[in-house]
Every structure is written in C-alpha cells, then in structure tokens.
C-alpha cells in the first residue's frame, strides 16, 4: 500500500463503511420487495446467511496477511471509532444478542445485573488498563505479564488462564452458531456447527487480527441494525413513540397493573390464574412424590432397578400405542420422542424430574413483579392467605423470612455485578483489541466508542423485554385458544422449548400460567410480534449470526496467539523467523477451532453456566496482577505468581465445591453466594496474594521499575522502547 497518513486512512474507512451500510440497507429492501412478489421465506433465510457469510469471507480474503504486526495487531492503525465498533462486535456474543432480552423478560430487575455488569466493566478497562497496555504495545496479555514480572512463570500462568477462559467461551459461541444455522436453514445441528465454523475461519485464518478487525466492524453494523429495527417498530405499535428506550415507562406501568390484577383472585383474570396455578401445584406434588420414591430407591442401592422400571414404563406405553391401529399418530410420535429423549442414567433422570418439579413450582406461585428489586419469597402473603387469623408472632416470623431471602438476593446481585465487571476488564480477547489503536490517545477515546456502541444494544434490551411482556399480558393472556395470535401459533409449532402453550383448565382461554416462553424467543419472535415481514426475521437471524461469529473469531485468535506467540515464540524458539511464527499461529488456530467445534457438537449441557464462570475465572486470574503491575511499582514476580494462582485457585475451588455439575452442593456456599459469582472471593484473594507475595520478597529490578514508568506516560524523554516488531 502506498504510504497513507492516518487521517487519509480514517477518511477512506468512513467512506467504505458508509457505502457498505447503504448497500446492506439496499439489500434488505430488495429482499423485502422480492418477498412481496412471492419469494418463499426459506429462500430469504438462505440468501441472508449466504450473503453475509460471503461478505465476511470477502473481507477476510482481502485482508489476508503474513506480516507479524498485521497478523497480531492489525498493523496498529485501527482508528478509535472503528476499534470501538470492532470491540462491540467482539464483545456482544450470541448470548447478548439473542438471550439477553429473554433473561430480562424472565428475571425482571434481577436480570439487570447483566446489563450493568457487562457495560460498567468498561469503566475499569478505561481507567486501569487500555491506555497502559497500548503504551506497552506488544501482542498479547501474557506478553505484559511476562515483561512486567519477568521470567516464564507469570507468562505461563497467564497463557493457561487465557486459554481456559477463552476456550469455554468459544465453545458457547460455536454452539450458538449451530443453533442459528440449524433453526433458519433447517440443517442438522452438527452440520450447522461446521458450516458456521467455515464462516469463522475464513476471517481469522487468512488475515489474523487484521481480517478479524475489519470483519467485526462489518458485523457490528449488521447486528445493531438487526437489533434496533424490530424494537423501534414494536415501540411504535404499542406506544406510538419510535424511541422505545424512552417510551417503555408507560408499558412498564401497564405491565405492573396487570401483574396486580393477575395476582388478585378477586378479579376475573386472577380467578382463572388461580385455577391454573392449582393444577401446577398438583403437578408439583406429583413430581415431588416421584422424586421421593427415586431417592428412596437410591438410598436403598436400588437406583439401577428403579431406572430400568421407569424406562420400561415408557417403552410399554409406546408398544401399546404402536399396536393399536386406532391410535392418534400424534400420540405415537410423542411416545417415540419420549423414549428417544429418556435420560441416559439414573442421575440424569433425577435431574430431569427435579427440573420438571421446579418448573411446576414456579408456575404454581404468583406472577413476580417485573420492576421490583430483590423480591422475598412471599412467605408473609402466603401465611395471610392460608391463615387469615395468624398471630403477630407468626406474621413477624414470615416477614423475617422474606427479608432474609431478599437480602440474599441483593448480596448475589451485587456480587454478580462485581464479577461481571471485573471479568470484563480481564478478558484477554477484549483487552487485546486496545493494542490495535495507533496511539495511547486513541486507545482512551476508543474505549469510549466501544462502550457507546455496546450501550446502544444494552439499553435497548430492557425496553424490548418490557414491550414483549406488555404484548403477552395484554394481547395473549385472556385471548381464546381458537384464535391465537399468529406468532404464538407459529413458534409453538416450530419449537416447544421456545414456546409452549396448552389449555390446562380447559376453559378455552389463555392464562399466563399456561404459557412457557424460552429465553431465546423474545428476540427471535419480535419481528413477528411487531407484524413485520419475514425479511426482518431473516435479518435478525443474520444479526445473531454476526454476533456469534465475531465473538468466536476474537476468541479463537486469542487462544491461537497465546499458544503460538507466548508459548512457541517466546519460550520454545525465540529465534523463529517471522514467516514461521505466523504459519504456526495459523496451524494452531485451525486445531483449536476444530477442537472447539467438536466439543460444541457434543452439546455440553452446562455451557451457559460455564460462560458465566469464565468471567469470575478471568477476573480472579488477571485483574489483580494487571492492575497492580501498572499502579504499584513494588509488585514483583513472586507476588504475581502467588496472586494469580491464589485467585484462580480460590475461584475454582469455590465453584467445584458449590456447583452441582461438579458434585458440589449449595450447603458449602459462603454467605449464600452462588457459584457463578465466585470471583467475589477470588479477586480480593488475588490482590492480597500479589501484595503479600511482593512484600515478603525483594523489590523488582530497576529495569522493571523503568518499564512501569514507561507505560504510565504516553511519551517520555529518553524512554525505553517495548514495542514489538
């Protein structure tokens, strides 16, 4: 490329991406016209996914490179605003795009921990890390640990933690890609995973960070358009105001009024709800009895026999139906499915039953209020209902119980916000992005842009959740089963995990307790709820795919770079020629990607928990050593090693002893903190470890202290140079 100033480069980028955005909008409009002319929805889905993946591949091929600085840090000339967009796409995963609004729909105020946690972390990135890492100016996060603390050990621990955290996260992304491709293209899940993988690899494999950066900018533009348009439409429909974020206050009040009505058995709607809740209550009792029998069998060492008997029952039912020529084919299908999905062993059977019991229990209770913070468990209300003549002592005891529950919820909320924030400021694939700006100055501005672009989506999600709830409470509840809204009927037919609706009390009308909504449904169904043409649904799918692909790319690059740069180049063969370094990195990228895709295709059950856990792990391992490395000159190698190991160790230990997936139990919890927020213990221990470890050993060498001064000042006379070539 001809020598181009940074200003010219930025101007050119603005022009390209301006054209690109216009082109994308034109593309959507053309498809909309074709849809009106009769193009079937399946073709719209295919066109969208094929066109966007081809586009990413095109950018990837155009940005291919074998130059080390281009490959690892995009040549360090990504302007602040574009790096902000790339970081936004890098950051917002399939879970943010598709799952966030659904989580907020289900959890109300308590779900806001994710909204605050995943944005407020950028304050820590801006104040404590981004400008200093940019001045340091190498390639990876373990690079900083290695240079600041000296020796291979801190770097190696950094590599281990970076891979642990990023791998869990990338598996979840590839899983998300598989879900989207299988749902919208009708591919089999395993095949969908590998098709998505091809979409990921065309970018990162050929051009490393350079290709990933320019694709992520493109992906951000698609995902934000796809997210905002349906919400604007829905807002106009319900409130007459296109700015949903301002307008949903009214909807929220209407929702709260309806919640009160539904919980009041004296109203007509409330009475019907109570009827359905009674049915759920009976179901809950049924499952509890079954669980009790199972536990008794387990205690008597008869678990296997019990399991075999249960399985035989399901088999028998199917055989009976198959033998009966007059049987309803739908019932046969259901019985076949029940047998196919029957849990594989007695432990899984117990989990399955427990889940069903808890689902029934949740539906048997009153509707939780959306905006209320940390609700108690309703012990007082229950007591007064069951025993109107309760003594003041009984009431006080019930009230104390409610307060205790509420305080535990508040504690967990605050702890989770803390872990998500500190974790955000410690995820290597995000921090790495601030190596790519041209200067410290731009790095600072770039964090502001990053958060602004992320903010656009995150402050829309709570609005979408409330608007969707409004739709369900006012237009679905109380409507007749004979005339369900089209979107309900469509989704219930496609996927029962997303939308399930059944007339339990046989009154022909829909009650809230008769509806089950999966958390992914809200975003996916919004275009239909708002009455938009199918082309918008296709766009939303393309947006979700963009979110998953962009995050997966950033993560894969982080893992491959940790292995190729930190392990191979810095530790094994420091004399390796640059060509070989890039080649090794590409080969490792391929291996990691295939491994991750393989793991994702096994559909690991607890992937969502593991993603949440990644934040606590990253926070405990990296944050103390990185921040003290800049802000405390006395921190040394021994401190860093002890702090990182102790932080990570405590965090892993806590998860291991409290999370049931690992055989832990809630009884081991400290102050009732849930395992997902283990970082609340890991981070302080990490800080203590660095401080104590440093103080009991000698102060770091003079050169190290000079390195600290070097990163603190954007420019110093007679400065050392740590920039990597």
């Amino acid at each position: 490329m001809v020598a181009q100033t940074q200003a010219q480069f930025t101007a050119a980028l603005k022009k390209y991406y301006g054209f690109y955005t216009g082109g994308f909008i034109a593309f959507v409009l053309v498809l909309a016209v074709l849809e009106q002319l009769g193009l079937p929805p399946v073709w719209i889905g295919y066109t969208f996914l094929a066109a966007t993946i081809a586009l990413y591949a095109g950018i990837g091929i155009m940005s291919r490179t074998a130059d080390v600085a281009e490959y690892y840090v995009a040549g360090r000339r990504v302007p602040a605003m574009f790096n902000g967009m790339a970081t936004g796409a890098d950051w917002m995963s399939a879970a943010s795009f598709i799952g966030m609004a659904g989580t907020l729909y289900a959890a109300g105020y308590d779900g806001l921990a994710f909204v605050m946690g995943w944005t407020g972390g950028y304050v820590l990135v801006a104040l404590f890390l981004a400008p200093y890492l940019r001045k340091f100016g190498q390639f990876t996060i373990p690079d900083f640990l290695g240079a600041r603390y000296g020796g291979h050990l801190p770097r190696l621990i950094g590599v281990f933690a970076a891979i642990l955290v990023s791998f869990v996260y990338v598996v979840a992304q590839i899983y998300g890609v598989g879900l989207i491709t299988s749902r919208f293209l009708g591919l089999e899940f395993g095949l969908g995973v590998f098709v998505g993988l091809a979409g990921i690899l065309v970018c990162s494999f050929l051009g490393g960070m350079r290709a990933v950066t320019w694709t992520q900018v493109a992906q951000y533009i698609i995902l934000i358009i796809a997210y905002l348009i349906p919400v604007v439409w829905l807002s106009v429909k319900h409130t007459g105001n296109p700015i949903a974020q301002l307008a949903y206050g009214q909807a929220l009040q209407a929702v709260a009024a309806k919640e009160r009505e539904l919980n009041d058995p004296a109203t007509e709607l409330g009475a019907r709800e109570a009827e359905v809740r009674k049915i759920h209550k009976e179901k809950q009792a049924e499952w509890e009895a079954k669980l009790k029998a199972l536990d008794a069998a387990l205690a008597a060492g008869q678990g296997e026999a019990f399991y075999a008997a249960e399985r035989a029952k399901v088999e028998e039912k199917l055989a009976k139906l198959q033998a009966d020529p007059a049987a309803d084919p739908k019932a046969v299908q259901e019985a076949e499915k029940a047998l196919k999905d029957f849990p594989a062993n007695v432990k899984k059977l117990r989990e399955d039953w427990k889940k069903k019991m808890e689902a029934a229990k949740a539906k048997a209770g009153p509707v939780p209020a959306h905006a209320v913070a940390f609700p108690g468990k309703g012990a007082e209300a229950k007591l007064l209902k069951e025993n109107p003549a309760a003594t003041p002592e009984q009431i006080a005891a019930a009230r104390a119980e409610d307060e205790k529950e509420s305080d535990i919820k508040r504690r967990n909320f605050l702890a989770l916000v803390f872990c998500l924030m500190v974790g955000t400021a410690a995820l290597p694939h995000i921090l790495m992005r601030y190596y790519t700006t041209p200067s410290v100055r731009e790095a600072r501005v770039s964090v502001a842009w990053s958060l602004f672009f992320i903010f656009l989506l995150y402050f829309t999600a709570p609005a979408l959740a409330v608007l969707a709830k409004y739709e369900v409470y006012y237009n679905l509840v109380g409507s007749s089963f004979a005339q369900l809204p089209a979107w309900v009927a469509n989704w219930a037919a496609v996927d029962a995990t997303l939308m399930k609706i059944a007339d339990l009390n046989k009154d022909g009308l829909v009650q809230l307790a008769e509806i089950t909504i999966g958390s992914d449904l809200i975003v996916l169904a919004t275009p239909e709820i708002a009455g938009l043409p199918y082309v918008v649904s296709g766009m939303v799918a393309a947006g979700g795919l963009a979110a998953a692909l962009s995050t997966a790319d950033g993560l894969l690059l982080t893992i491959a770079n940790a292995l190729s740069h930190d392990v191979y180049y810095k530790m094994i063969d420091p004399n390796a020629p640059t060509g070989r370094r890039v080649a090794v990195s590409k080969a490792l990228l391929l291996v990691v990607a295939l491994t991750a895709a393989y793991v994702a295709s096994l559909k690991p059950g607890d992937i969502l928990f593991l993603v949440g856990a990644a934040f606590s792990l990253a926070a405990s391992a990296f944050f103390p050593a990185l921040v003290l490395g800049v802000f405390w000159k006395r921190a040394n190698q021994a401190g860093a090693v002890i702090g990182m190991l102790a932080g990570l160790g405590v965090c892993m230990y806590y998860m291991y002893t409290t999370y049931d997936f690992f055989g832990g139990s809630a009884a081991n919890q400290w102050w009732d903190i849930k395992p997902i927020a283990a970082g609340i213990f890991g981070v302080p221990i990490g800080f203590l470890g660095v401080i104590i470890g440093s103080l009991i050993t000698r102060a770091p060498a003079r050169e190290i202290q000079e390195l600290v001064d070097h990163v603190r000042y954007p420019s110093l006379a007679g400065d050392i140079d740590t920039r990597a070539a």
Partner: protein
Amino acid sequence: MQLTEQHREYWRKNLGLTAVLLAIWFVVTYVVSYFARELNEIVILGFPLAFYMGAQGALIVYVLIIWYYARRMNRLDQEYGVHEGEE
C-alpha cells in the same frame, strides 16, 4: 530515564482523576443497587428509579465517565508535555 517533578505531578493528577471517576462508578453501581428497594418507591415517567438506573441511567453515566476521562487525560498529556507525536 529520570522522572521530573512535573512528571510526578502528572501521575498524581491522573490518580486523582481516576479515584474520583471510580467513586462515581461505585455510587451509581453499588450504592444505587444496594438501596434499590427503597429507591424503587420513586417513580419518574413510569420508571421506578432503581430500575431505571440499572437499565439505562448507570449505563449513560459509564459512557460519560469514559468519555470525560479520555478528554481530560488527552489534555493533561499536552499540558505536561508527555503527549505522543502526530503520526
């Protein structure tokens, strides 16, 4: 490399700014959430206050904090002569 008094002052100012902004971050995040039950009694334009802060208010404050920090520090670099040359 020798740090001058001016360099030290730059760093002190940076630490001061960082501390103030971090305190604001702490208040809008943790203090507001801690008192969420009480703050939710106040309703503005249909939004209970703590709900609004968690869903939008805190986010807006975060963006402003980062924007202000970038602006202030980039000026401070110039004032103390530690800014980078134009590329």
